[in-house]
């Protein structure tokens, strides 16, 4: 029979409790709503940076909490973020080669 303690230990071992996941999903939904609001409300010079920051925050939250990277061995985080960083670097260089960043 599963006891409350076992369930709690299980949640600790494999990530968060279900309530914790629901809280993360609510935060993600709120950030999405804020992202969509930039389509209707003029954010001025903050438009682009705010959208990019919100995108990165959502990305990190899903990867850390839903994909359990925060609770797994640090080597997985190192492998994932190093690979991601390298990929972003390569594609930014490729885009720069095509003068993408020059208006």
């Amino acid at each position: 029979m599963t006891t409350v303690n076992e369930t709690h230990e299980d949640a600790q071992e494999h990530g968060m409790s279900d309530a914790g996941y629901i809280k993360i999903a609510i935060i993600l939904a709120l950030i999405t709503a804020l992202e969509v609001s930039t389509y209707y409300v003029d954010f001025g010079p903050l438009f682009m940076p705010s959208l990019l920051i919100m995108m990165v925050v959502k990305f990190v939250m899903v990867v850390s909490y839903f994909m359990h990277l925060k609770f797994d061995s640090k080597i997985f985080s190192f492998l994932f973020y190093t690979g991601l960083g390298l990929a972003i670097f390569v594609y930014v260089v490729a885009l720069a080669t095509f003068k993408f960043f020059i208006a």
Partner: protein
Amino acid sequence: MWLFLGSECLLFGGLISTYMLYRGRVQNGPHPSQIYDIPFTSVSSFVLLMSSLTMVLAVSSAHRKDDSKTNLWLLITGLLGATFVGGQVYEFTTFYREGLGFTTSLFSSSFYTLTGFHGVHVSVGVIMLMSLMGIIKKNKITGDKAEVVELIGLYWHFVDVVWIIIFTLVYLIPA
């Protein structure tokens, strides 16, 4: 799985970069801002985001060895994924009727290739979820069930993460 997801990062990175390069190249047909339906795509994005929640609840149930709840959450995740794909099919059909074919412009080719590839990944994910439900029901997983559910979950969350990037860079940031 992490290595596979790493290779997928490179695939989608290439497709997103190509779209970023070509999104302003509209010789014929409608411009992105003329055809994107942001409220509709926002709802689709919300649906896919919530499917990540139901997926993680399925993984959580699998760790508690609760097969019936695991299957229920997997079914809901699959239905949300199918809703997203349905929305994408509707969006593509609407765009096509408005004059945006695959070869209309460089923008249209890169847009359909990027979002189409993502749609195929979601569809494959839905098939994987339905297959997983079947093998859990028939009790055909010999090892740790939770580990199998978690692996499929990783793939599903990755598909969601890619959409988070596509939604911002393709739909919300104008060309």
